[in-house]
């Protein structure tokens, strides 16, 4: 752990210098700082640092396809969502008084897909919305201020309802913690449940999912990326080595990234 701090400081200083000369810090440099300060893994920090040292900032091509391995394809994602939809129906008495809230970015289309399946099976409309958690994050001060996602709570509200939070990847549990805080400012649901497409383990908070599409044992050095047709043009869950996360971050889709914060 001790080895990481001076390295992070170096990177931060480097990014600050670039920021001062170029006005806005190029994403590459900012990413290196993010990787080294946010990720809990010393090893990851070291690799990110090495990457930043060898390749000039911004040299990672943003559009690069991840060279990781595809864990779930479109059919498997579809089947997993259908199963989760049925589990939700079983455990919420046929989906009465259920409100689905997706966490941006990729939780939102997932919530919409689940809502469509619930409606298909039960025949009544299930309210679906989105819940942005950016302002409630505990790591805001570790990165430059980021753009907010969209919050749209269904007109029926959440008071007295069973709210099912939907996200793509469950990792540290911090996103869900922030979502719970955010939710309590919007209303008082009767119960809150959590549905995720992928649970990759490594929780840092006492949080577990009620519905899981796929349990995916991972190392903390690996990055799980969820791609969805709505946001990425294809459906896939990809398990890749750490550096792809930086490329993804450099593309500027930091917040809702399937890297699993």
């Amino acid at each position, binding site marked *: 752990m001790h080895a990481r701090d001076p390295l992070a400081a170096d990177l*931060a*200083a480097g990014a*600050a*210098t670039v*920021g*001062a*000369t170029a*006005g*806005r810090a190029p994403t590459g440099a900012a990413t290196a700082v993010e990787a080294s300060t946010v990720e809990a893994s010393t090893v990851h920090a070291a690799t990110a640092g090495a990457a930043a040292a060898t390749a000039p900032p911004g040299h990672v091509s943003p559009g690069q396809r991840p060279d990781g391995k595809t864990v779930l394809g479109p059919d498997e994602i579809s089947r997993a969502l259908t199963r989760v939809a049925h589990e939700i129906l079983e455990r919420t008495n046929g989906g009465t008084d259920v409100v689905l809230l997706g966490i941006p970015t990729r939780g939102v289309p997932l919530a919409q897909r689940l809502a469509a399946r619930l409606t298909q099976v039960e025949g009544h409309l299930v309210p679906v919305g989105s819940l*942005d958690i950016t*302002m*409630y994050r505990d790591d*805001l*001060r*570790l*990165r*430059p*201020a*980021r*753009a*907010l*996602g*969209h*919050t749209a709570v269904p007109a029926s509200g959440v008071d007295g309802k069973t709210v099912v939070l939907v996200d793509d990847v469950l990792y540290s549990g911090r996103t869900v913690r922030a979502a719970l*805080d955010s939710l309590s*400012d*919007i*209303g008082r649901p009767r119960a809150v449940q959590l549905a995720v497409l992928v649970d990759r383990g490594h929780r840092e908070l006492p949080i577990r999912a009620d519905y899981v599409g796929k349990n995916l044992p991972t190392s903390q050095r690996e990055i799980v990326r969820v791609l969805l047709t709505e946001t990425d043009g294809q459906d896939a869950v990809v398990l890749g080595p750490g550096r792809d996360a930086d490329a993804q971050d450099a593309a500027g889709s930091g917040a809702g990234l399937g890297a699993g914060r």
Partner: protein
Amino acid sequence: MKRHLISAADLSRDDALLILDTAEELAQMADRPIRKLPTLRGRTVVNLFYEDSTRTRISFEAAAKRLSADVINFSAKGSSVAKGESLKDTALTLEAMGADAVVIRHQASGAPHRLAGWVRGSVINAGDGTHEHPTQALLDAFTMRRRLGRLDGLRVTIVGDVLHSRVARSNVLLLRTLGAEVTLVAPPTLLPVAVSAWPCEVAYDLSAALPKADVVMMLRVQAERMNAAYFPTVREYSRRYGLDAARMALLPEHAIVMHPGPMNRGVEIAAEVADSHRSTIVEQVANGVSVRMAVLYLMLGGADPGGGAPTGVAAGAAGAISPESTGALEVAR
């Protein structure tokens, strides 16, 4: 985002749009039962007001409190400034108290720029002399976009005392960045000497300019800065450059009427215009809180860009700002 917000020219198109989009999300919060976000918990915002202000100060205070920041209000009256303390000494006092952001209004153009070199925190210009008032321009742009759905290609006519108006300058710069076309309409005596260098059109006939305007923004006649005979009588000014119901009828169907406030009813704007459905004056105040929340969040919410060191990054940022700011200052005189 830059470290300080001193001039509307500091904002790139991306920065400005990021602020407007963020404000759009934050505006939704007004409908919630709990209108508070924990984002700036533990941060301190100082409102440093050397000039009288109602809506700007209250707006900044409400914005900071809704983001859970601690707010210290400081007005020149009843403080050590009345005993002759200089801006620099006041700044050093604030510095010692650990202000993360200083919102400053000052009667001297350029005061926020000077302050930015003395304090560690972010400096937000809430109006300096006859120079700039960037958050007003942002909330005006936000109001236009909400009402009319776009900014690109929008035709905005700004009418009145441009010479003394920090709102006009900030609006011209920001609206230009955002792709709108600005026309200034004013008596020649109330236009800055170098107005030809501004990125906008200039006209002298209000009635002729109105039919092609999407937005008409009336500026306050700043009686407190009228130290020379800029126009013969208030009545004559009002007849030629005031917006009354007859003139308002010349506007296209969708056009809106804006005023940064405080209004002189019956001088630059008739009461019936100010209270009409085209008027966005009350909306502008509500939008001001959302926009200022967005500015505070984007400037204070993330990692400290300077890592706490006032010299390196702060000097770089100040260096980047000074050419525009001083250039604009010269234009003002």
